[in-house]
């Protein structure tokens, strides 16, 4: 299966596809893009995944422009095709959020919309054949390129962290510092076990953003990996080529479901966590 004719082993191929375009301090002390996976790994704290960031921002801007233009032009009259499509999504998010989140907060539904559409667009990049963009970019002299931002754990955890910060913010605002700490300390066991409760509830609290970010990352990373492995089959002769083509189509079709579902799950769980943050216990 190895594409030795290109001077690449399977391992190198996979590693190459899983290496971000990283900008930072090079071993010789200068600043620039890493030229190899080893160089990238050696970069210190002051480095950034340029490809993931740019694709994420670019797709986010696509979302904002698309929805922004439609929202600006939206009237109560008869909606056109694109407006209809956008409004179906907005309506869907609005209903979903309305069922989960019953408190007054004008920020939650737009946040859910942003998450759902943005994450979906980022996930959608997974359906672009794995070699197209990296190969085109390599012609332009860019060595690494990962076009699916959600296969980068930093991207998914970054979003989860923001959601977590919002959860903390609204928890403190709704319940007060004492109320929130009390909720963590006096559950599920009586007050005598407060330290124990605090540890237990603290873990529960921390587990939310971690599971939120890692779930999305894991699903997309695994999906991406399978696409890369299928792509490897294309160098294995006519039979493998054909089989690989069928597999890629099948996996892509299945993946359409996964990327939508994962985007939806991320959005809904964020709303659920925020709803819990707004929940003020009436008992005690």
């Amino acid at each position, binding site marked *: 299966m190895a594409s030795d004719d290109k001077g690449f082993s399977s391992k190198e191929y996979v590693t190459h596809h899983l290496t971000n375009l990283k900008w930072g301090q090079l071993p010789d002390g200068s600043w620039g893009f890493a030229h190899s996976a080893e160089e990238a790994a050696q970069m210190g704290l002051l480095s950034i995944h340029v490809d*993931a960031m740019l694709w994420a921002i670019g797709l*986010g801007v696509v979302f904002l422009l698309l929805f922004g233009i439609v*929202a600006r032009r*939206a009237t109560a009259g008869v909606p056109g095709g694109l407006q209809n499509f956008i409004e179906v999504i907005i309506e869907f998010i609005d209903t979903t959020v309305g069922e989960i989140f019953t408190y007054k907060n004008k920020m939650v539904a737009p946040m859910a919309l942003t998450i759902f559409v943005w994450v979906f667009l980022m996930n959608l990049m997974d359906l672009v054949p794995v070699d197209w963009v990296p190969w085109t970019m390599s012609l332009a002299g860019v060595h690494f390129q990962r076009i699916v931002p959600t296969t980068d754990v930093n991207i998914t955890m970054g*979003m989860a962290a923001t959601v977590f*910060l919002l959860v903390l913010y609204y928890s403190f605002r709704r319940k007060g510092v004492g109320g929130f700490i009390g909720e963590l300390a006096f559950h599920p066991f009586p007050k005598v076990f407060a330290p124990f409760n605090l540890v237990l509830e603290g873990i529960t609290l921390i587990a939310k953003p971690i599971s939120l970010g890692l779930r999305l990352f894991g699903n997309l990373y695994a999906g991406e990996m399978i696409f890369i492995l299928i792509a490897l089959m294309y160098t294995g002769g006519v039979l493998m080529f054909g089989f690989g083509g069928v597999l890629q189509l099948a996996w892509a079709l299945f993946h359409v479901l996964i990327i939508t579902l994962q985007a939806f799950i991320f959005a809904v769980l964020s709303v659920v966590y925020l709803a819990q943050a707004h929940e003020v216990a009436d008992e005690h």
Partner: protein
Amino acid sequence: MFNLATFIGQSIVFLIFVGICVKFIWPPAINAMRARQQRIAEGLENAEKAERAIAESNEEAEDILRNARAEGQQIIDAARKQGTSMIEDARAEARLEGERILEAARAEVSQESNRARELLRNDVATLAVAGAERILESDIDRAKHADLLDQLVKEL
């Protein structure tokens, strides 16, 4: 794999995008949708109202039609009755007229026959006189026998 700058960068970008969506995208879109919902609801209500109005006016029109039909029937009946009575009247009148004409004709006939009888009587009288003259071959004094002749004429 962890990269702090990417992590923090994405957190901030996410927050900014959410902010933009909250401020500039969600409100106009959802407002337009709510307004449309309101308009559609109003339109449906109006349509229902109009439908009700149509049903009402239909009923009214039917009422009017029914009344008109009944009235027409009445008029036709009255006309028929009047026609019948007129025919009756005309018939009675005609009968009367016929009787009158018949009466007049009868009177005329009788008058005519009287006159004819009178003429005949005169003629007979003359003839009788002439006959008697011839028979007697002598003059009869008209004046002398006038009374006798008159009596004869009357007897005829």
